């Protein structure tokens, strides 16, 4: 059965190969576009989240009868471990995409035939998808607690006082979600390429 398939494939192989090569070039172009978009979005998310600092004077009423106490408090991204994780993961993802684009451009000639050489890139892409999604989830959950508070654990809401900090953090989260979507699309494009190539044979 295997010989039958290869003999059938060999008869129309020239045309199939040309079509395959054309689609390979198109796929590689799409992949480069996706990688550049992922780079831009994760870079912007890391910068927006990493420059998140706000100093506000907060009115804290300790005792009901007395006038509220005005304290000057600072909210900084490095004060919360989940925002630190968020900035770190976005920075790592951005650096990885830059390095992987250089790597793919270097071995790009043989990548169409040499699937095993690109398994490393796929593995790291998957790791980046997982890390980015987890950083988004962590930042979103902490942002939600900061917005709404949690009455059961006595964690009070803080976003009413630090509006600009919370809005900037939310914007960074949205940008990072778009970036992680592009990373996901990179893996999907590779899978589609692989699927199409195995079907042709």
């Amino acid at each position: 059965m295997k010989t039958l398939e290869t003999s059938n494939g060999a008869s129309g192989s020239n045309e199939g190969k040309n079509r395959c090569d054309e689609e390979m070039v198109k796929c590689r172009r799409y992949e480069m576009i996706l990688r550049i978009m992922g780079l831009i979005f994760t870079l912007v998310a890391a910068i927006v989240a990493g420059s998140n600092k706000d100093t506000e004077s907060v009115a804290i009423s300790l005792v009901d009868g007395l006038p509220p106490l005005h304290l000057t408090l600072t909210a900084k991204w490095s004060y919360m471990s989940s925002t630190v994780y968020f900035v770190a993961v976005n920075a790592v993802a951005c650096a990885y995409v830059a390095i992987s684009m250089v790597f793919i451009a270097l071995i790009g000639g043989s990548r169409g035939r040499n699937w095993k050489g690109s398994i490393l890139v796929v593995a790291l892409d998957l790791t980046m998808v997982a890390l980015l999604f987890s950083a988004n989830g962590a930042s979103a959950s902490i942002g939600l607690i900061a917005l709404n508070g949690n009455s059961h654990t006595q964690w009070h809401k803080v976003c009413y006082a630090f509006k600009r900090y919370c809005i900037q953090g939310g914007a960074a989260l949205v940008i990072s979600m778009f970036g992680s979507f592009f990373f996901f699309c990179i893996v999907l494009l590779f899978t589609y390429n692989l699927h199409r190539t195995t079907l042709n044979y």
Partner: protein
Amino acid sequence: MASEPEKVVPPVEAPVAEPEKAAPPPSTTRPTDYFAVADVVLRLLVFASALVSVVVMSTSKETEMLPYPRPAKFTQSPALIYFVAALSVAGFFSLITTLGSLYSLIKPGCCAKIISHFIVIDVLLLGIVASATGAAGSVTYIGLKGNTYVGWEKICTLYGKFCRYLGASIGVSLFASVMLVLLVLLSVYSLSKKIPK
């Protein structure tokens, strides 16, 4: 003259044919497809980890006697509710893909196209499980360490059993996401082996 060898040949062939029929039919000598077996095993592991995480998180209720009994359960935090929901979805879909790849192991060559579709499902599950792990992990970390800058106190000194259950559940879901990464890599590798050089 030509008919004589023909008459001689059939009786020679007949006794040769009979021992072949008497012997058990030759098995299609196919080497054990280790990739398919590893595929099923990994998917079972993912399903088991998702199930364990959901069960442990759901049964992590602890009541402490402060002036009045105050329970700590997973429904009090939206991140933990999201964790349970996301891992249930992941467990359900991993069960479906386990059955699919088990069927493909038993009847090889039947669903070759579907296996590459399972890669997409696996990457989606990876994203979902990773985000749920991150969300629940961040909430649990704040419960463990507290945050002095925002005035959020640690609760794990008070609710020890609750925090242990949460930590175990999140650890198992981290294991599930690692298994999902290995699963996608395995599927990609086994698909790439089918391409003749």
